[in-house]
């Protein structure tokens, strides 16, 4: 490994890390964009992510197919999203608090059912080698891109197009911007929000499957440390735009890769501080992009978090 790359190892590893680490951010934030564009917030996606990681790993182990694992994770995530959506449809229920409760319930159920799966090894998701042209192992490692990352990127563009140019996208945006306008159009806001929350939960579940089936690629109780929550904050930063989410996810992935990268080249001083980098970055971004007086540009009108 002592090649002549020198300090270039660090940016290269961060690039590779950004691609590897960003995928769960990407899926969770896309799920949250869909949910929030319909006018509801789901803070519980952290719990959904962990439950998706567990159910994906368990299904992949039991069936031998990582793709069935992804499917199971999506189904689990959709279930949590559906429950969240139905509860929040009740009048006078606080969607932020329900999110916290669902986060605790999701983690509890994931740890409860996941205990027998901490030891066994499940099959990994396949990845594509984009670094075949290079002889440098670090370059090849950095460009080994997982299929789910590519699917996530495609999904971001598809969602952008959906919100911009399709009837479904328009319906979700109307419901998110004004309940009254949606009712006047003959739409059923509660139903559309519940469906959006359900699909958003499925996305977050897939993000969890990526964690347990590719990187870090095993199931344990510490598999997510706030990625789901950071992805929710990232949506505000990305101004509810799916393509901006893609960029933001890469940025956050890079920040998340900082600690492990520095440790791998032997810098252990202040390791824990680098470990905190993604949280500090998220907080900094939130501070920079929030505003006390005016409503945030691009924010759905019915969103409780920005009111």
């Amino acid at each position, binding site marked *: 490994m002592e090649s002549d790359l020198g300090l270039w190892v660090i940016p290269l590893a961060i690039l590779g890390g950004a691609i590897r680490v960003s995928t769960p951010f990407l899926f969770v934030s896309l799920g949250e964009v869909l949910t929030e564009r319909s006018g509801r917030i789901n*803070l519980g996606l952290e719990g959904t992510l962990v439950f998706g990681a567990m159910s994906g790993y368990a299904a992949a182990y039991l069936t031998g197919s990582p793709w069935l694992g992804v499917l199971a994770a999506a189904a689990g995530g959709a279930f949590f999203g559906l*429950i969240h959506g139905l*509860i929040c449809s*009740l*009048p*006078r*229920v*606080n969607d*932020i*608090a*329900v999110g*916290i*409760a*669902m986060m*605790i*319930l*999701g*983690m*509890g*159920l*994931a*740890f*409860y059912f996941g*205990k027998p799966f901490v030891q066994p090894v499940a099959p990994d998701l396949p990845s594509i080698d984009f670094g075949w042209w290079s002889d440098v192992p670090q370059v090849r490692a950095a460009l080994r891109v997982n299929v789910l990352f590519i699917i996530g990127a495609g999904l971001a563009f598809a969602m952008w197009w959906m919100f911009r140019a399709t009837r479904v996208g328009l319906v979700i945006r109307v419901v998110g911007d004004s309940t009254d306008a949606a009712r006047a159009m003959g739409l059923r806001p509660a139903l559309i929000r519940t469906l959006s929350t359900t699909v958003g939960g499925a996305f977050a579940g897939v993000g969890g499957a990526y964690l347990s089936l590719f990187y870090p690629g095993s199931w344990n*109780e510490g598999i997510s*440390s*706030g990625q789901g*929550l*950071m992805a*929710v*904050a990232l949506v*505000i930063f990305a101004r509810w735009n799916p393509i901006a989410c893609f960029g933001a996810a890469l940025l956050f992935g890079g920040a998340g890769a900082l600690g492990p990268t520095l440790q791998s080249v032997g810098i252990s001083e*202040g*390791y*824990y*501080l680098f*470990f*905190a980098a993604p*949280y*500090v970055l*998220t*907080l900094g971004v*939130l*501070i920079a992009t*929030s*505003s*006390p*007086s005016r409503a945030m540009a691009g924010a759905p009108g019915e969103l409780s*978090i920005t009111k």
Partner: protein
Amino acid sequence: MTDQSASAPLVVPAHRGLLGRFARRAEAVVLPLAALLVGIAVFSIFLLLQGKSPIQFFALTYQGAFGSAFSWQNTLSRTAPLLFAALCVALPARLGLVVIGGEGAIVLGGVAAGAAGVVFSQSIGLIAFPLMAACAMLVGGLWIGAVGALRYYRGVNETIASLLMAYIAIALMNHLVEGPLRDPESLNKPSTTPLPAQLRVGDIPGWEVHWGLAFGILACLLAWVLIEKTTWGFAARIAGGNMRAAQVQGLSVGRLIIGFTALGGALAGLAGFFEVAAVHGSANGSLAAGYGYTGILVAFLARHNPLAIIPVAILLAGFEASSGLIQRRMNLPAATVLVLQGFVFVSILMSDTLYGRFKMFAPERWRSA
């Protein structure tokens, strides 16, 4: 329920004596209790589906939490940090803020207390305890007060910010305990230098439970007085109802927000002080035991009423105290308590939709006899 309010008499008697006042108060007790029971019922069905006996579960919970003097001591020692952690949620909640990062203030308060204990290791407890507690409260207050300030000055969502800061606090604690503040003799578990014997907080005489419990109950009583009996508490409730109306009324909403969040954080920091000075003897990774997160549920179950926090905290501390016994006897994973908490939490939030729907709690809607 519009039909009932429409048929209500136009002239509503102010109250209907003791029974009417009782009925109005009863809603705030009956509905959370019912929600708690529903959560427990759903959890029991969950256990039945696993082929486990809920009766055995709750019998063991009783035995492990309240069955003997020893289990009561275990429960009450865990109650102390929960009281402070719940106040860290309940005080900002008066202003309509959902602050869930109390864990960060507990952890950093504990580190501050541990570090202060090293500095004052030569002095007697009478001098050192107030200083250590003050350091813990200062750090905790600044940490959560910053969340309030960010909310007021920058409009940053306090729920997300406080949880992010809890993660940052735990990383900071790991950095400090493994780096600058590490006792070189702590090999397996990096810790600060152990507190000398005279700087360990002892037990309440005759109780074998550390003093944190007494101070936690005192904090709940004082918080109740603050909220219910002072102008600040009244102003906070107005601001919590409608922030803009409060501003128009000339209330300094910024001071209220920062003051209440900082006070909540200071109390959570005090929990960290007691965890270090009474339980662990030094600051280390055990500080991040999750009390801050369980405290969220305590506060919501108590409907952010500081007096109700006391029994609710004892109940939830009991669930956690009996967890080990249940794991051993029933071969259930440690996360079982978390599942129970999740079901109860969801149930209690769903019950929010029921307030004002039952005629028996609203004396003005009773038919005149």
